[in-house]
């Protein structure tokens, strides 16, 4: 079980995830530091990510796009705000238009990744803060594998939740 815990703050629109991996901290750092590795996991199999730029340094920028099943492209950018190998990475993440320019009115998310050395194993703590519901909405739509199918499952949960109120 790689995911240890998740916490969601509805008011603050933030999300925290703790996961543990059976690999050393230097190795886990590479899944972030190496764009070729990042491409293998950032997008779901149906929406794989391609990074055309990846300046992995403080103040550096990354540009990527995700390609959907019908060839449609969703573009995003990162602005890297902290890189402290192999323990800490922080970046802002937002949507981009077809030229790769940031779409300002959709806002940005602020992500911080912390890796902890657990003696051969690694704990990864990821915190994302969203600026608005609309933005969270877009993010979910863009990053979601078979999003609707999942949303459908959640209709049941929602109804069960309402019934118990």
């Amino acid at each position: 079980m790689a995911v240890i815990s998740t916490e969601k703050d509805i008011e603050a629109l933030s999300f925290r995830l703790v996961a543990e991996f059976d690999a050393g901290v230097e190795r886990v750092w590479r899944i972030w530091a190496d764009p070729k590795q990042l491409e293998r996991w950032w997008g779901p199999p149906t929406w794989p990510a391609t990074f055309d730029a990846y300046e992995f340094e403080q103040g550096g920028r990354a540009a990527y796009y995700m390609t959907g099943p019908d060839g449609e492209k969703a573009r995003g950018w990162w602005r890297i705000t902290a890189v402290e190998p192999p323990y800490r990475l922080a970046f802002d993440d937002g949507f981009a238009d077809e030229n790769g320019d940031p779409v300002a009115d959709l806002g940005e998310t602020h992500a911080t990744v912390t890796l902890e050395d657990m003696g051969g194993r690694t704990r990864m703590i990821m915190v994302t803060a969203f600026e608005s519901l609309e933005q969270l909405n877009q993010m979910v739509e863009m990053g979601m594998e078979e999003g609707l199918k999942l949303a459908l499952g959640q209709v049941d949960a929602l109804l069960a939740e309402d019934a118990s109120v």
Partner: protein
Amino acid sequence: MVVDMLSEDEVDRLFQALADATRRDIVARVLIAEYSVSGLAEQYDMSFAAVQKHVAVLERASLVTKERRGREQIVRGQVDGVQKARRLLDEYEEIWRQRVDRITDILAADAQDED
């Protein structure tokens, strides 16, 4: 859909409304974003009138609301902001759970290469 108690009639309406795959799909869509009835009709291989009928069933079950805006009828999921935020964060969590699974696979593939 914030209700303390549903009458038997309401429960029937709810289950009937959700018994149809297209209607479930409509609910899933309008919980994420608002759609016009014509916008919804574009998503399915059926007539505008058929989609409108589905929306009416959902409306009676209080699963969606419909509001006229100019020439359009806008359909929205009947959830308040907090529930919407919670649901979106749940979906975002799922995105990350899948990412963590993929990372785990990548790391496991390395371990095999070393063997």
